[in-house]
């Protein structure tokens, strides 16, 4: 029997989700319901296209000529951990082809197959939605503790990671929140913190799904606002040590 993985879409030229040029595979299924989600059409597990393992693997391998300079494949979503069991054989195969694998996750799930998958992954892009427990839950319908537990696992299994957070005006565009994020996620395994501006280009997808986006009226952060927030943590070197 052919095994399948359910995929929302594949982007062949991804320069924003991990190092180098990457094929970004957006999987369906997500346990969170983030108010600013720009891919609400990936929420439902199974709502995308079934790819056989071979189909997906061959599509990724076709892009191998572009993976020099640190590139590779990024599994994103949705929440890719929702399909961790089917990702394991795919990741094994890609690993054997020498492909760099990144996992773009909110880290709110944990089980044995996720643990096994983690061993095959080269880099984790951990999206920490908010550093305040209550706001985290309001914003995502999940819990911050899950993400923090996942972070502990990354440290335990010595996985390099990047911390990412989407900056949404009125919700987390506060200096203290960003400084807390830096402190909360600090470890020698952390290679980078990326603050990403909230953008509304995915708004049409909410409408297409007949949903109202709770943040519809919130403006996108300005370039200068993003610059100032990023500057707060930019003199922290990537391992988390403050430079003098």
């Amino acid at each position, binding site marked *: 029997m052919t095994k399948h993985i359910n995929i929302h879409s594949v982007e062949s*030229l*991804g320069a924003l989700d991990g190092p180098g040029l990457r094929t970004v595979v957006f999987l369906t299924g997500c346990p969170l319901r983030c108010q600013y989600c720009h891919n609400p059409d990936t929420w439902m597990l199974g709502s995308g296209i079934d790819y056989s393992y071979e189909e997906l693997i061959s599509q990724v391998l*076709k892009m191998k*000529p*572009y*993976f020099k*300079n640190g590139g590779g494949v990024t599994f994103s979503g949705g929440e890719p951990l929702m399909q961790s069991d089917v990702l394991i054989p795919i990741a094994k195969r890609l690993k054997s082809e020498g492909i760099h694998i990144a996992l773009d996750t909110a880290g709110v799930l944990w089980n044995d197959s996720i643990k096994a998958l983690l061993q095959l992954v080269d880099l984790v892009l951990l999206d920490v939605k908010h550093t305040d427990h209550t706001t985290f839950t309001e914003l995502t319908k999940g819990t911050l503790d899950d993400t923090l537990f996942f972070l502990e696992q990354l440290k335990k299994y010595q996985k390099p990671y990047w911390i990412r957070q989407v900056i949404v005006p009125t919700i987390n565009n506060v200096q203290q929140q960003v400084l807390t994020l830096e402190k909360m996620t600090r470890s020698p395994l952390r290679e980078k913190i990326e603050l990403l501006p909230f953008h509304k280009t995915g708004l049409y997808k909410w409408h297409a799904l007949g949903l109202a986006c709770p943040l519809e009226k919130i403006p996108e952060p300005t370039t200068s606002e993003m610059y100032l927030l990023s500057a707060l943590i930019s003199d922290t070197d990537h391992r988390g040590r403050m430079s003098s």
Partner: protein
Amino acid sequence: MTNTAWNGFTQGEWQTCIDVNNFIITNRSPFYGNETFLEPPTQRTTDLLNHFNTLKNEELQRGGVLDIDTEQVSSLLSYEKGLIKGHRELIYGLQTDAPLKRGVNPFGGIRMARQACEAYGHQLSDSIEDHFKYKTTHNEGVFRIYSEDIRKLRKSGVITGLPDAYGRGRVIGDYRRIALYGVDHLIAEKELDKKNLSKDTMLEQTIQLSEELYRQIDFLRKLKEMALAYGHDISVPAKNSLEAVQWTYYGYLGAIKEQNGAAMSLGRVSTFFDIYAERDLAQGVFLEIDIQEIFDDFIIKLRMARQLRTPDYNELFAGDPLWITEAIGGMSEDGKTLVTKSSFRFLHSLTNLGAAPEPNMTVLWSEDLPVAFKKYCAKQSIATDAIQYENDDLMRPIYGNDYGIACCVSAMRIGKEMQFFGARSNLPKALLLALNGGYDTMTGMAIGPQLPVMADGILDYEDVRARLDIYLEWLCEQYVQAMNIIHYMHDKYAYEKLQMALHDTEVHRYMAFGIAGLSVLVDSLSAIKYATVRPVIDDQGYISDFNVVGDYPMYGNDLDVADDIAVDITTAFIEKLKHYPTYRNAEHTLSILTITSNVVYGKKTGATPDGRKAETPFAPGANPMHGRDSNGALASLNSVAKIPYDACRDGVSCTFSVTPATLGNNEIMQTDNLVTILDGYFGQQAHHVNVNVLNRDMLIDAMNHPEKYPTLTIRVSGYAVNFNRLNRAQQEEVLSRTYHQAL
């Protein structure tokens, strides 16, 4: 042979025979550093540039042509020497007696020259009209011979843009020979060749070549006289960088005075000049800022080059291009790089003088190019959109170290090979002709073999492919016939005597055929094969449209089932062309290149089985059809990379447009990622790519407010244009192309 002008150069074969390649290989200084050594423009450069920009604005206000000399026929000695009044020039020489004033060159065809003058409010003088009453032009010669079938193919637009009424171009004189050897030595060599030839049996070939040599020598003499008017004696070799650039430019200037060719490439001069620059820098003759100033001045002169053409012609080749193509970089066969400081200096002119379409900067890309140079190219691409890239690792094994690019993508050994240019055939139209059994619904003409219309229900792929084969075979035969006639007549009535004088006497010739609308044809065949395509029959019994039911794999998504059709078609086409012998035993080649004519070709083509509506533009070159490459930018490039260069030796053109944010969120990332894309694409044996890094919004704004973007340059199809020089339809077509975004 020796000469004091060569003091300090490493000795070699180049001293015993004419061999610029050997001179470069023995003397070049590979450069692995970055761009920090480059100098800004001098005040003098900036003043001259400002003056040029003012003239350009005036030209634009006058409808695209500043002035025309309607009294003389353009040639080397037709005009008084041209100077830019009120400015000190470093590199001398204008095409006529004043900057941007155009000369008339009716040898391609008097009608075109007359129409062009009239289109811009001038009248061709009586003396020229009279003169050409008693002279046969290339155009007249061709039409004396054209068959009924060829006329129909031309009229219906199955073949369009043939160089039968204008200069064929695509010949690159080795202008460097003038600087290295001086004209007297070149004349002596040609005289020797002619003398040797006179011992041969005097039959057609020998007589033709002998007469050509006579004309070559005649024009080398005229070239000396032309230079002398500016006070320069080019009978002897150039002594320093300034003279090397000047001598070389005189050769190029002579060529564009004498020929109004479609594409008049420069060749590969930057690394040649670098050898002089290195010697001058070492001896303290010039400083870096002087060298850059010389190059900048030279490039301003190239940007001033103009030809007089009709508005019709501009519809095919938009933006008034000359394709002053300069091949930059690359590697040599010994594994060393041909990148020198002057490779950087040429690209740096885009910073010093602003972005511009000319000269057509063409970087010969190799995986082994110095990393700093790769990054600098990418940086300049992102900043200016004025660079095209071609695969040196693919071409070098075929053409050796010293090849250039004629026009956009046509490789040839400089001074050793030339090309008979042949525009292109509209293959989607050929498919419609095949389905309608030799009837063109757009013109109502019966063309080619007359067979039943394929009107019986759902189209079957095997039947259609077999039918297409019949028409392609017939088309190829007619195409070769037409080309033989054209180039016989061009050699007879509009021979490129000066450019050919800067070639070896025995040259290898290519005959370059072309395909337009490849992606439309491939998708049409894919639709017939994988979806259900039912022809719509009009009241006269001909197919006027198609009903397409179901999905089909489209070219441009890295899907072999679709891309294989592109491989099949290109391979079949060149094989068929080779069935028919060529004039002067030229080697058949094929390009997938449309310039901007993809708009015109589309206009002349009815609805196609891929679902494309009648009269809508094709995709340019080998590009996937607009918006159909939905698997992302790299999948799109991978599809193009599959088209075999072996079948398409005259080039496979691809235009790649990407938004800056897609490449990364800062300049370093964008640069690194663009380098990685180029390495990845060319690593798959791809041939060519134009790179545009720009926002679609900016183009829309530029369309509505051209005054805000006077220098906005974009790559279209093997060359760059100033966006403001495109007409509205062409601008809209550029906008409809796929702009790859990560979302």
